[in-house]
């Protein structure tokens, strides 16, 4: 194998690997921009992965089999939304500390997915999943075509969502409200913005995205479901939001950096370079820290009230 195809393979693999992190990260970006830090992302992803898997699994062979994936994706987003709203109830209405509540949600989501999976499915099982959809013409472009235009539809959707989320955050009234309630909720409140409502909406959207990210894992990437399929990717998605400094493009770069590093380390191992493989496995994690340590901190970005509950009347 020559160097060119080595690099090309890393790019071809790394792009789809990044999608789950990207989808969840975009949702988490909205959450955090609105001032809520949702560590429960991991649990929502587990539930999303599980419910998305159900329609293809149970509808196989029926007349609905053709649209089973779509039903699965929709279901994952609905369940994600519901869990996002549950989280909102706990941290916005009940003002619970967000870190601990997030861990609770993570356990709850993982637990429910695992329990129901055991009872209703019973064992690790594959599904046909979402097929690749090369984009006509574009996929024929040398190199670029393979790297960018030869994937399953969710990959395109995820990357198209980056500008969409950028637009939502910075160009729409709702995005403005989201940013305001995450930075200075009291000011937003004084202008008649319903802080709690905006946070509920943000968490619902974030939940839907985390659900979709989980669905990507079970339907498009692994094409199967198993207990703990998510295996920590939700936590990484949350961490990448800090890496991306609460900007959709930054989060995309973070997800790509992580996933390309992942593809790189796997490729290094596969190339048979002789050193303990554990150090290869560490590579993406180390790289993310190093890159973040090297870039300079920008002033005044991000939600300064992140993690703090808001109540109009209560002080301190």
């Amino acid at each position, binding site marked *: 194998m020559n160097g060119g195809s080595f690099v090309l393979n890393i790019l071809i693999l790394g792009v789809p690997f990044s999608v789950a992190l990207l989808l969840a990260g975009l949702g988490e970006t909205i959450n955090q921009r609105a001032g809520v830090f949702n560590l429960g992302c991991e649990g929502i992803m587990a539930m999303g992965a599980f419910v998305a898997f159900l329609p293809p699994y149970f509808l196989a062979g029926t007349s609905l089999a053709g649209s089973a994936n779509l039903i699965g994706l929709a279901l994952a987003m609905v369940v994600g939304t519901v869990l996002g709203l549950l989280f909102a109830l706990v941290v916005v209405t009940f003002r619970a500390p967000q870190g601990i509540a997030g861990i609770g949600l993570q356990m709850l989501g993982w637990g429910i997915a695992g329990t129901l999976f055991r009872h209703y499915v019973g064992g690790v099982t594959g599904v046909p999943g979402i097929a690749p959809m090369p984009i006509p013409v574009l996929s024929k472009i040398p190199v670029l075509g393979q790297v960018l235009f030869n994937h399953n539809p969710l990959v395109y959707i995820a990357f198209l969502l980056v500008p969409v989320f950028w637009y939502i955050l910075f*160009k*729409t*009234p709702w*995005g*403005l*409200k989201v*940013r*305001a309630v995450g*930075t*200075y909720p*009291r*000011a*937003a*409140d*004084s*202008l*008649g*913005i*319903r802080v709690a409502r905006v946070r509920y909406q943000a968490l619902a959207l974030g939940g839907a995205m985390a659900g979709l990210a989980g669905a990507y894992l079970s339907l498009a990437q692994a094409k199967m479901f198993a207990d703990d399929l998510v295996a920590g990717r939700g936590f990484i998605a949350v961490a990448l939001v800090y890496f991306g400094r609460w900007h959709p493009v930054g989060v995309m770069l973070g997800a790509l950096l992580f996933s390309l590093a992942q593809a790189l380390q796997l490729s290094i191992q596969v190339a048979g370079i002789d050193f303990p493989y554990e150090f290869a496995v560490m590579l993406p994690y180390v790289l993310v820290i190093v890159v973040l340590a090297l870039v300079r901190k920008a002033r*005044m*970005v*991000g939600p*300064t009230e992140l993690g703090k509950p808001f109540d*109009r*009347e209560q*002080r*301190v």
Partner: protein
Amino acid sequence: MGHEPIRSLELRGITKRFPGILACDHIDLSVGEYSVRALVGENGAGKTTLMNILMGLYQPDEGHILINGKEVRFRSPNDAFDHGIGMVHQHFMLVQNMTVVENVALGMKSAHLPFRLDLASVRKKIVEVSERHELPVNPDAMVWQLSVGEQQRVELVKTLCLGARFLILDEPTSALTPQETDELIALLSKMSGELSIVFISHKLHEVKALSDTVSILRRGRIVFEGRTENHSPSELAALMTGHEVELPRVDSTGLDRSGDRGLLSIRDLRVRGDRGNLALDGVTLEIAPGEIIGLAGVSGNGQRELAEALNGLRRPESGSINLDGVELAGSSASRIIAEGMGYIPEDRNTEGIVPSFSVRENLVLKDIGQRDWSRGGFLRLGAIAANAAGLRERFDIRCPSTDTAAGSLSGGNIQKVILARELARGPKALVAVYPTRGLDMGAEEFIHKQLLARRAEGVAILLISEELEEIMNLSDRVAVIYKGKILKVVPGRDATKRSLGLLMAGVSDE
């Protein structure tokens, strides 16, 4: 907007409780068309709470609001906006990392198109309002880049852009320079011809200048209502605090310090600001023991950088800071503190105290490593408590107990905590930045007396303030800072409002 303009607005029997506090106690208040109603009272009297109820931010426990004789219920500020009521809040309600347009757009529902934020229309509205009322603002500036005065203007423009015909202003001048204050007062009196205004302030001369009628609030009750023109400021002050208020004055007659060496001497200090600019460009000042130097200037001319450099929070580029013979330029904050520098910082809530710490902890915040408060690394809780009890007594700090979180105290009491800590340490020199900002007259009187007492004990004091009254009352000498340079130093007794005002604007009379 859909509602007829407000001809009369009435609050009836408004009562609001917070845990353990009756903030508003059956308050009746009415405001007519095109009139200015001043609302004054001590810190914590309930002024802000009452206005928040009028804005629909708080729900009253009892009582109701009548507009043009009809009862209304405000569930959120939107309801108040719909009736044309707008408020400039006591603390800035501006999102720092957004632009001015975005801040205004947040409240302008007409710009909230289904899939797009119509910033162009907001910008147009801002330009229109700012031209009409002569309130220049740059719509595309980020809020954090603006000076305090500019931010105050943005607040006003924002409120007007939202269509306010009935304006509530909660201490709008407390952070403004004298010029800015005068301009604002002039502007408001012009505007009062077409709007109704409720004006809250601790500065009674402003109240006199602007308002038609005045209400005085004490402990949640209206204790006085009358026409402003019938009462002098000192009368009002007495009504407010329950006693005659007389702000003390420094007496530096007969003192000649030309031969004294400086206790705190600053030479040719150069310091960079947050944006890399040279915020202090060769400042030289000598402060003798027992001398108060007032540093007058429009905020943003290097005052913050000077205070921070003096206290080791900002590293000078060059120059020297000498305290009682010890060179301190570039030293750490802890070393400077140990050498006997005292500091009353600008932002009392996040720089002066740790809000969640108790009063007694805050009182030893700077000296916890000293033998008095810890031995062998272990705290001497008894001594710390006794210290707090003593200082509470001496400085009249009003708190349920010295174990109370300092952050829950009123602004005035927080300032007293800071003052008590800084003065009880027995500093050689003291840097006091805007020490009475936002405080009522009683508290102001107290703090001024304390500063003078320290002066008498030989402390060198640098008083940074925008209140010319305060500066002239307290300073032996007044230095004027402009664009990072000291323009002039004049003896306190020669300083006049006019001459200082000109200097602050950069007009040097030489």
